[in-house]
């Protein structure tokens, strides 16, 4: 008897339990009845608006200047530390080899945020970013609001942005302000329709996004002293791709340092390697992560 035949003999008798199958059947039935989770913009629907906003974006880039250095990282250093991830990071580094072996190479489909990249000036800001894993996370969990799917509705021009409560011309001139719609809360697993103003700095080039773009982002809790919302950290700011029915978040990588890569891996879980097949897409990513995995890790963290 060959190995193939013996393997079939052995494995054919191994099956999931009836109890498990009944449970899965019930879960599938419940899932089928849920409203569909919105994932992507309809490019055709937003195409016309994007063309108009491109003009605004070009003007904004000219106005704000190009490639200037930020003195205002989006990430503040917190004082109290009830939990340290530095230790975990060091311990998990031993798994890097195994992770590399298990990565899945994929060719990216059409870029979802191509509107932004039509005008993107890739000249990343690299100063002022946190230098350690601890610096990013220590004592800051209570600042996290949730992990959202946002759709950019339009860009605020400089005069509009300057009228926002809490706007600081010295600190905020390197950032873009957008009207954005919260379409889904990945942690709360709930659809949304709230319109917010979100501040997105130019770490990965300016303008970071354009009308119609979708992004998955962890936002800080609302600060009543400000008329806009901020990201928790730009390493939790993902471009979205759908591959085989699964949503992946891609982390822009131009200025990621090692600590931020560690943080991204910690929350993102599996790294998916990719090949860029579109010569016109200048996006450079550190990795692709399953959106559901990121959400689950954040949900677990916040429930601790």
């Amino acid at each position, binding site marked *: 008897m060959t190995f193939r035949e013996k393997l079939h003999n052995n494995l054919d008798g*191994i099956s999931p339990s009836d109890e498990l199958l009944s449970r899965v059947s019930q879960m599938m039935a419940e899932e089928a009845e849920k409203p569909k989770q919105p994932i992507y913009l309809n490019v055709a629907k937003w195409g016309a608006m994007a063309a108009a906003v491109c003009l605004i974006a070009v003007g904004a880039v000219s106005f704000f200047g190009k490639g200037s250095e930020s003195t205002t990282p989006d990430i503040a250093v917190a004082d109290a530390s009830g939990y340290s991830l530095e230790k975990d990071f060091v311990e998990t580094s031993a798994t890097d080899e195994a992770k590399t072996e298990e990565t899945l190479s994929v060719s990216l489909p059409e870029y979802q945020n191509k509107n932004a990249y039509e005008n993107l000036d890739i000249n990343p800001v690299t100063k002022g970013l946190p230098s350690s894993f601890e610096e990013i996370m220590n004592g800051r969990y209570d600042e996290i609001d949730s992990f959202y799917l946002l759709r950019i509705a339009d860009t605020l021009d400089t005069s509009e942005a300057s009228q926002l409560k809490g706007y600081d011309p010295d600190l905020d001139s390197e950032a873009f302000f957008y009207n954005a719609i919260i379409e889904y809360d990945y942690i709360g697993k709930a659809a949304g329709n709230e319109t917010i103003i979100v501040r997105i700095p130019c770490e990965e080039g300016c303008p970071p996004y354009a009308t119609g773009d979708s992004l998955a982002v962890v936002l800080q809790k609302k600060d009543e002293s400000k008329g806009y919302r901020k990201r928790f950290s730009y390493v939790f700011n993902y471009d979205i791709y759908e591959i085989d029915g699964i949503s992946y978040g891609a982390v822009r990588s131009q200025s990621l340092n090692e600590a931020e890569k560690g943080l991204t891996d910690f929350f993102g879980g599996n790294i998916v390697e990719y090949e860029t097949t579109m010569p016109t897409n200048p996006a450079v990513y550190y990795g692709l992560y399953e959106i559901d995995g990121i959400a*689950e890790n954040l949900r677990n963290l916040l429930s601790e």
Partner: protein
Amino acid sequence: MTELSLCTRESFDAVMRHYSDMVYRLALSRTGNPADADDILQEVFLRYIKADKTYNDEEHRKAFLLKITINCTKSFLTSAWNRHRDFAEADENTGGYDKRLSDIETKSEVYGALLKLPQKYRTAIHLFYYEDLSVAQIAKATGAGESAVKSQLSRGRAMLKELLEGVEFDDIP
């Protein structure tokens, strides 16, 4: 298999029942743990229903399910939670699944040997000799290159020959 493209509760259920063994056995081969294979089975079919894809034929559906099983186990094995899991504690608290695994290893000599291989070799051997996938199909499902798959099969076979005296392999690519 009859056409199951209609998105009814009955059709989803029929797909799950039809492919549950395939998904479960692959998940078990990759994780080496029946309890983890249980969790992955649930996750795979939740993703299947969320994807709500249209399939050209049953081969297409099967390829999709194999691929998301591989992706789910990857996510599971490299998740922050799994990397920090205390396996000794897990075994103490869940003696039931540990017993299931030892039953499999005891009663199934060949499969028990397969579970002793490094994971990437297990996956290639499982897909080639149990699911009857070609090297090209395995490469597509796992994201590895065809030469890498051939190498995994070759090394996996060499290890199995050491573990299983006298075993013969057919269809060596």
